């Protein structure tokens, strides 16, 4: 969410305010050309509701908003592969890499927040990149977006000179870019569509009334049931009980204009001022964009100098390079999770099954601010997971197994699986498949002073809790005591080392003991079933590790002292089963239990 992104649109009437008069914003407002905006509207190039999808700033009231900056192309003095960066405020975004050419074309766009007293000058840097030289900054320019947007020009596109960063700053090329302000109605419509898609479980683009109703209830909306029905019926023109997302989104957007349906941001939970539509829309849109990584340019760098390092570019091509405090923006590229394969010593892209992606999206888009939301959402998640659990326990679900294996053909090695495919009568049985003895050798099996990995997984390890908070777990409410729950004292683990074993859907879903010792206790903690995707973990609004359903075991080991072993359930996969219990002596590498589909 963008809880800090408050924008004061009321400042438009500040001509009598001495502070504002002195400000650049106030000077800008004097230059705003409303006539041009009106002229363009009169020309009829509208979207049918009297607004352009993208417009220039047209009135003094519009000066705060979302600017869409598009880097179109450049004309350089020599051939090379090119990429461009936009630095704005504290962040830098980049385009993809062009072909080997003198005239690279990117057509990359980025939404930037223009707010009162906020940044409004974007620096654009163009780098050459090839195998011989690392990314070299060749040229740069700066653009004042507020000035650009207020220009009285018929063209949204402008060509700027790129200057050599070294004196005497010769012109080394030109870059074409455009900038416009996103139309509030269009933003709202897109936003409504995104929200509605959360309950479009099968992604067929249609919604039933119960689904729509559930969603509104889950978001804590106080609109009367009759209003929901009224809205839904208006969209359902043929009365067949389902409407398309597009239709309903358009209707909701229009309704939102008249009488807001949402009283709080469903992403971060922040209360929305009824009278401040512009702020609300910007807030909502940016919250969602933060969540979905739905923009063309990639982000995550703090400065363009930082972005000039080749390895960072490589990493950010797929991976979410999480900078301090910028984690979610970059970590939110939900479909691009990259991990380092320890065995193969290379980066690999994680493939996620479509169904899981869908559930991730469903959870994630609504989940980021769930702590502040109506408990209906939590129940909804449980309900989804329980339903999925029942389905995955049914005989019919077995037919999904071949497709699942095909989807992850590079990551599921059936030669390692103990039983043949015919053995699995349900999807859940396959999900918790056992492996053949010996296919997961235990490192230094006789040496109890060597700890081993507890699962086939994506692992994050931190020497201290502080490191884990600084680098990975961004949830504001995270604490060791919160993780372990009230029945277990966290004193022994204060400032200890923390290791996170994240299982992806395709992984072998049984977990093993990392150390040898006695199981002192196992405590079940009820909770939510939020996703444990890095996207959620990286979000300051999510506290998945301390709010999710989990079981905490304490293993007493002679070589490592006490080790807290926390098995955390997640969306869909919310069932935790143990095969060992309190008082058992366990050997490292031995199976402890498994996760399966269910609530």
């Amino acid at each position: 969410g963008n809880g800090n992104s408050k924008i004061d649109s009321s400042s438009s009437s500040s001509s009598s305010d001495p502070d504002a008069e002195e400000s650049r914003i106030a000077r800008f407002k004097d230059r705003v050309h409303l006539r041009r905006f009106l002229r363009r509207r009169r020309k009829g190039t509208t979207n049918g509701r009297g607004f352009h999808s993208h417009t220039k700033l047209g009135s003094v009231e519009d000066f705060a908003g979302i600017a869409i900056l598009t880097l179109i192309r450049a004309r350089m003095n020599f051939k090379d592969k090119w990429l461009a960066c936009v630095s704005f405020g504290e962040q830098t975004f980049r385009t993809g890499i062009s072909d080997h050419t003198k005239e690279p074309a990117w057509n990359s766009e980025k939404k930037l927040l223009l707010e009162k007293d906020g940044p409004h000058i974007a620096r654009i840097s163009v780098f050459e990149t090839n195998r011989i030289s690392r990314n070299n900054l060749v040229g740069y320019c700066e653009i004042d977006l507020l000035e650009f947007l207020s220009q009285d020009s018929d063209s949204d596109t402008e060509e700027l000179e790129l200057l050599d960063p070294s004196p005497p700053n010769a012109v080394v090329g030109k870059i074409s870019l455009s900038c416009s302000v996103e139309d509030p109605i269009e933003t709202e419509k897109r936003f409504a569509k995104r929200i509605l898609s959360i309950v479009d479980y099968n992604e067929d683009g249609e919604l039933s009334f119960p689904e729509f109703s559930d969603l509104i209830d889950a978001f804590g909306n106080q609109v009367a049931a009759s209003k929901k029905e009224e809205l839904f019926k208006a969209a359902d023109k043929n009365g067949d009980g389902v409407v398309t997302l597009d239709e309903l989104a358009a209707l909701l957007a229009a309704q939102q204009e008249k009488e807001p349906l949402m009283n709080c941001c469903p992403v971060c939970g922040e209360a929305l001022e009824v009278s401040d539509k512009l702020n609300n829309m910007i807030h909502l849109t940016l919250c969602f964009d933060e969540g979905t990584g739905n923009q063309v340019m990639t982000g995550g760098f703090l400065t363009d100098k930082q972005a000039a390092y080749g390895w960072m570019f490589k990493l950010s091509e797929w991976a979410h390079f999480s900078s301090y405090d910028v984690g979610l923006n970059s970590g939110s590229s939900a479909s691009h999770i990259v991990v380092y394969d320890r065995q193969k010593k290379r980066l690999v892209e994680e493939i996620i099954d479509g169904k899981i992606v869908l559930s991730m999206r469903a959870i994630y888009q609504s989940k980021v601010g769930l702590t502040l939301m109506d408990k209906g959402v939590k129940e909804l998640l449980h309900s989804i997971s329980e339903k999925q659990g029942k389905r995955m326990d049914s005989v019919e679900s077995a037919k999904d197994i071949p497709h699942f294996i095909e989807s992850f053909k590079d990551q599921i090695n059936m030669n390692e699986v103990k039983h043949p495919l015919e053995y699995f009568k349900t999807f859940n049985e396959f999900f918790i498949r056992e492996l053949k003895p010996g296919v997961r050798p235990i490192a230094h099996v006789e040496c109890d002073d060597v700890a081993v990995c507890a699962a086939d997984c994506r692992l994050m390890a931190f020497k201290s809790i502080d490191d884990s908070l600084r680098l990975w777990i961004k949830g504001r409410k995270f604490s060791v005591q919160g993780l372990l729950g009230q029945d277990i004292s966290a004193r022994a683990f204060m400032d200890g080392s923390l290791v996170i074993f994240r299982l992806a859907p395709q992984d072998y879903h049984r977990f093993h003991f990392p150390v040898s010792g006695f199981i002192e206790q196992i405590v079940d903690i009820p909770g939510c079933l939020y996703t444990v995707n890095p996207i959620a973990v990286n979000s300051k609004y999510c506290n998945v590790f301390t709010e999710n359903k989990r079981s905490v075991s304490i293993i007493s080991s002679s070589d490592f002292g006490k080790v807290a072993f926390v098995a955390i359930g997640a969306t869909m996969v919310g069932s935790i089963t143990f095969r060992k219990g309190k008082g058992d002596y366990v050997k490292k590498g031995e199976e402890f239990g498994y996760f399966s589909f269910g609530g």
Partner: protein
Amino acid sequence: STVICVFEKDSIQIDEDLLANSSRSLETLVRVGTKLGLSTRKVSQTDLPDVRRCALD
């Protein structure tokens, strides 16, 4: 699903490659049973000089 293990302070020396990747916010793909780290007790033992190679001057 996720498993989190919390070790007592200074009880484990986690393998350096895992720490290095994590410090870059990069997850590491690992398998069950592969090495995670050493007990610090073990580390302190290996830090001791090999007495068989020691000689009195």
